[in-house]
């Protein structure tokens, strides 16, 4: 159940979870669009569009629909497929609704692309005695944002320091 999250030395967001299912099954849930549509996205979300051409250079496209009916399209390209160990893909959230872009990047110019929305995601599937250790690494494609994150992680876990700051602010 527990998910751990950290900023690794490679300046990425890292999420890991032990899934109680064999690796082949977990890998399939990530590479079969019918299966992916069943679980992708937060609670209460559906995926009316889920298309995947699972091969290097192949495209994927998912449209997540929130409980309020808002659509959050994500598209991207597969960079690497190593069955059943590893998936590398780009994620592009540029078609997300304006409200999302405004939250992530206020003060942006009209029509300006949002570099936060471009990410490289590496998913690894490790067999652990019949269970699967799933690791999701997300790296921002924007050099500016990545550099900033590099600086953050050189000092300490930046999300932790943010949490501490948040706690201070809440006082």
């Amino acid at each position: 159940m527990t998910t751990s999250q950290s900023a690794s030395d490679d300046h990425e967001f890292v999420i890991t979870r032990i899934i109680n299912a064999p690796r082949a099954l977990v890998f399939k849930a990530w590479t079969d669009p019918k299966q992916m549509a069943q679980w992708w996205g937060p609670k209460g979300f559906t995926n009316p569009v889920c298309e995947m051409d699972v091969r290097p250079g192949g495209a994927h496209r998912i449209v997540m629909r929130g409980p309020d009916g808002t659509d959050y399209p994500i598209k991207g390209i597969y960079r690497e497929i190593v069955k059943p160990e590893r998936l590398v893909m780009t994620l592009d959230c540029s078609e997300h609704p304006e409200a999302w872009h405004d939250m992530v990047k206020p003060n942006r110019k009209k029509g300006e692309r949002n570099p936060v929305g471009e990410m490289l995601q590496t998913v690894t599937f490790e067999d652990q005695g019949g269970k699967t250790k799933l690791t999701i690494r997300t790296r921002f494609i924007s050099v500016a944002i990545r550099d900033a994150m590099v600086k953050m992680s050189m000092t300490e876990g930046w999300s932790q320091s943010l949490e501490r700051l948040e706690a201070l602010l809440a006082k």
Partner: protein
Amino acid sequence: MSLDHLSTTFAALADPTRRAILARLASGETSVTELAAPFEMTTPAITKHLKVLERAGLITRSRQAQWRPCRLEAKPLHEVADFVEQYRRFWEQSLNRLEDYLRKLQPKGKKNVRKKPARKKP
């Protein structure tokens, strides 16, 4: 403002002295001299950090009072925290759903194990 907002905030937060300054400012407005005191830094060195924080919109400096007090601005911090939180929540919930889905997908093995004793007929 052509610089990317979020990355500016990240960069400003990257420095431990600047985070300490923000933490100090969380308890209220302060003058530059007061801010410099615990850091064993010269006022110009602290002023440099303040400029970075000001550019990122993390603090404001009053132009009315002569001692130009520094004040913490919480909004950019909340924006960064919101983004991180949104990302964390996305995965927490997606992976919960993935687990639920996989549990439904492979009930055979588990059910058989559980049902075996029940199937035994005298």
